[in-house]
C-alpha cells in the first residue's frame, strides 16, 4: 500500500494549492457577493489547462493517455479549500468530456470538444427522481421536463444527461435556459433548462438500456468521487478558519479554542473531513484501477463527505459565533456552499437504499 504522491500528483497539488492560497481564497468573498468569479480566474485556470484536462489532446485538450481520477480528487480537495463555486466550474467539464470520449460518436466528440476547446462549458444532470419524460423520436430521443438547477448550466453548451436507460449529450439550445444564482456556490453560473420535447439526435445518444445503466454507474462514480473530494476540502477549510479564530478569540479569560467543548467540536469535524478525503481518494484510486467496487466506494465516500461538510461548516459558524453569522468572515459562505454537495445528484443515502433493494 502506497499513500505517497507521485511526481505528477505532487506537482498538481503544489500548483493548485498555490493558486488557491494566493488567488482563489482572495477572490472567494467578492465572487460570492457578485455571483461571478473574476475574469482572472478563468484566465489563470485556463492557462493551467484545468477546463480541458479531460479533453483528448488530439481534440484540442490536455489529456494524453488515461485520465487519472486520483489526481483529480487531490485537485478537487485543494479547490474545495478555496471556493466550492470556482471548484465546480473547473470540474464541470470532466464528466461530459470523459463520457463522450468513451461512449460518444464522432459527431458527439466534434460537438462537445469543439465547444470546450473554445473555452466553453458543459455540465452533468441526473434525473434522480425519474421525473423527466423521455420519448423516442426521429432516431434519437425527445426530453420533456425541467433539468437542474445545475452548476455551469447558465453558460454551458451541453448537458450530459443521465436518465433511466439513457445517457446522452443534450444541446442546451434544445431547451429554454434560465440563469439563476442560488445562495450556495453563487459564482458557479447555475441554470435550469426547461425542455419541451427537446430533441437529442441519435448521434448524441451515448447509451441506451442496460448499456446506459452501466455507463451511468461509471459516470456517477467519477462525479461522486470528485464531489466527495471537494466537499472534504470545504470541510477542511471551515475547520482551518475555525482553528485560527478559536486560537485568537478570548472569552471568559481564555482563548475559546482551549475550552474542551470546542476542542471536541473541532476535533470531530476534522476527523470527519479527513475520513471523507481518504474515502474520496480511495474511491478515485479504485476508479483508476477499473475496480468493480469503485462505484460503491464513490457512493460511500459521498455519504461520508456530505455529512462531513455539513457538520464542519455548521460547526465552523458555531465556533465563530456572531462573527460566523455575518459575511465579513468566510464561514457563513461555506455553510451555504455545503448544501449543494448534498443536493446535486439527489439524496445519496436514498440512492444506496434503492440500489440495495434492486429498485
Amino acid at each position: 500500500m502506497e499513500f505517497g504522491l507521485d511526481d505528477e500528483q505532487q506537482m498538481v497539488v503544489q500548483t493548485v494549492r498555490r493558486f488557491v492560497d494566493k488567488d482563489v481564497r482572495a477572490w472567494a468573498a467578492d465572487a460570492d457577493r457578485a455571483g461571478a468569479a473574476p475574469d482572472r480566474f478563468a484566465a489563470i485556470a485556463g492557462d493551467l489547462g484545468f477546463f480541458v484536462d479531460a479533453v483528448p489532446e488530439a481534440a484540442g485538450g490536455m489529456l494524453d493517455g488515461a485520465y487519472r481520477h486520483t489526481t483529480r480528487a487531490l485537485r478537487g480537495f485543494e479547490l474545495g479549500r478555496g471556493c466550492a463555486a470556482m471548484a465546480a466550474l473547473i470540474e464541470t467539464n470532466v464528466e461530459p468530456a470523459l463520457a463522450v470520449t468513451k461512449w460518444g460518436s464522432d459527431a458527439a466528440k466534434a460537438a462537445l470538444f469543439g465547444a470546450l476547446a473554445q473555452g466553453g462549458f458543459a455540465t452533468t444532470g441526473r434525473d434522480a427522481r425519474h421525473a423527466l419524460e423521455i420519448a423516442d423520436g426521429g432516431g434519437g430521443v425527445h426530453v420533456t421536463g425541467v433539468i437542474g438547477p445545475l452548476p455551469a448550466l447558465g453558460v454551458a453548451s451541453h448537458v450530459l444527461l443521465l436518465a433511466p436507460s439513457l445517457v446522452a449529450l443534450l444541446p442546451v439550445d434544445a431547451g429554454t435556459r434560465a440563469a439563476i444564482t442560488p445562495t450556495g456556490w453563487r459564482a458557479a453560473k447555475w441554470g435550469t433548462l426547461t425542455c419541451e420535447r427537446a430533441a437529442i439526435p441519435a448521434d448524441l445518444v451515448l447509451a441506451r438500456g442496460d448499456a446506459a445503466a452501466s455507463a451511468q454507474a461509471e459516470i456517477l462514480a467519477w462525479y461522486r468521487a470528485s464531489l466527495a473530494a471537494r466537499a472534504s476540502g470545504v470541510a477542511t477549510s471551515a475547520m482551518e478558519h475555525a482553528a485560527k479564530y478559536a486560537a485568537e478569540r478570548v472569552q471568559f479569560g481564555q482563548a475559546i479554542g482551549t475550552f474542551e467543548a470546542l476542542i471536541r467540536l473541532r476535533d470531530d469535524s476534522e476527523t470527519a473531513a479527513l475520513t471523507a478525503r481518504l474515502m474520496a481518494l480511495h474511491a478515485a484510486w479504485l476508479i483508476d484501477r477499473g475496480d468493480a467496487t469503485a462505484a460503491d466506494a464513490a457512493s460511500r465516500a459521498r455519504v461520508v463527505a456530505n455529512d462531513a461538510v455539513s457538520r464542519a461548516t455548521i460547526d465552523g459558524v458555531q465556533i465563530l459565533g456572531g462573527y460566523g453569522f455575518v459575511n465579513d468572515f468566510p464561514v457563513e459562505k461555506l455553510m451555504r456552499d455545503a448544501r449543494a454537495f448534498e443536493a446535486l445528484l439527489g439524496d445519496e443515502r436514498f440512492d444506496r437504499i434503492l440500489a440495495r433493494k434492486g429498485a
Partner: protein
Amino acid sequence: MDLFHDAPMFAGVRQMLGAFALRQIRPVAAKHDAEESMPWELMKMAQSFGMTQSAMVDGAKAVIGKDPDDASGDDVKKPKTIARISCVGAEELAWGCAGVCLALGGSGLAASPVARMGNDAQRKVFKDALKGADEHGHIKIAAMALSEPSTGSDISGLSTSARKDGDHWVINGHKQWITNGASAAVYVVWAQTDPNAGRGGVRGFVVTRDTPGLIPGRKETKLGIRASETAQVHFEDCRVHEDMMLGIDQKAQGGLSDTKKMLDSTRPAVGAQAVGIARAAFEYLLERVQGGTTHGTPLNSHQHVMFELAEMEMEIQASRLLVHRAAWMADHGLENVRFASMGKAHAARTAQQVTTRAMALLGEEALVPGHPVEKWYRDAKIYDIFEGTGQIQRRIIAKSLTGVNPT
C-alpha cells in the same frame, strides 16, 4: 400542568398569529430575505393586534410578574400566562419567517430591561421616543446595545465605558450585532461605570437616537434572519443624563445580574421560534412527501423517507414540550433556568437538523433561489448562537446540575 394549552386564550393567540403568519408574513418572507430589508409594513400592521412598541414595555412588565400599572415593584404571586402566550405566538410568527418575527419583536429586547429596571420617568422617555413615525414614515423601534466586538458570550467583559461628569455619564465604545441598531429611535446601552467593579459596575442607560455622540453604524449582511436588522452602534463622548441610568431607584440594581435574569425570562420564547422554523420545514416536507413520487413510486411508500419524518416529528414535539415547560415554570414564578436553557438548546439543534435533512431529501429542488426550506436552513443557525450559544446553554445546564461552571 397545562402543557398543551387548550385554554381559549392560547388557542386564540395561536389562531390569530398563525393566520397573520400565513396570510401576511409568508407571502413577503422571500422578498425581505433576498433584499435584506425590514418588513416595515408588517411592523405597522402588527400594531393592530397589540404589538405596539409601547405595549412591549407593559408586556415585558407582565412577563416578570408585575402589573404594568403598578410601580410598587411587588411581585404578583398569581400565575401568569404571558410566558406561554409568548411561546405560542413566537412559534407561529417564526413559522411564517424568523427574520420577520424578530423584526416585529426586536424592540422587546430593549423594552424588557426598561420594564424590569426602569422607573416611571425612564419608561416615559422610552415610550415617548417610540411614538409617531420616523422621517421615512416607518414606525419607531428600539434597540438593546449589549454585545461588543470583543464580548459575545462573555457579557461580563464589556469595554464600553460610562464616565461620570457632573450630572451626566459620558459613554464611549462600540457595540456589535445589535438588533435594530441602525434604525432605532431609542437604545438601552450597557456600559462599564467602574473599571474596578467588574461585572457589578456594568449598568444600563436609556439613550435616545438624537443624543450627540450616539452613531448608528454599519448594517451587517447575515447568513439568515435577514428581515431583521443587525448593526453596529458607536458611542463617542455620548453624554447621557444620570436620570437615565436604569435601576437608580428600584429594588432591581440595573446591573448585569438583572440582565441575565431578563435573558432567562425571554429564553423560552426564543426556543419557541426555533420550534417554529423546524415545524415550517417539517410541514413543507410532509406535504411534498404526501404528493411526491420517486422512481415512479410514491415517496410515502419509502420507509427511509417516512422514518425521517417520524424522527423530525419526535424532535419537534420534544423541543416544544421543553420550551413550554420552561414557560409554564416562568408563569408560575418557579426557577426555570435549567429548563429554559434545555428548551432553547434542544430547539436550536432540532431546527438545524430538521432543515438540513429536509434540504437533503428535497435535493436540487431546494437550491432554487427563494426556496423556503433553504431560507429556513439559514435562519435556523442563529438560534444556536444568539441569546446564549449552545455551548453557553450547556454550561448553564451543567452548572445547575453540579454547581460547578465547566471550563
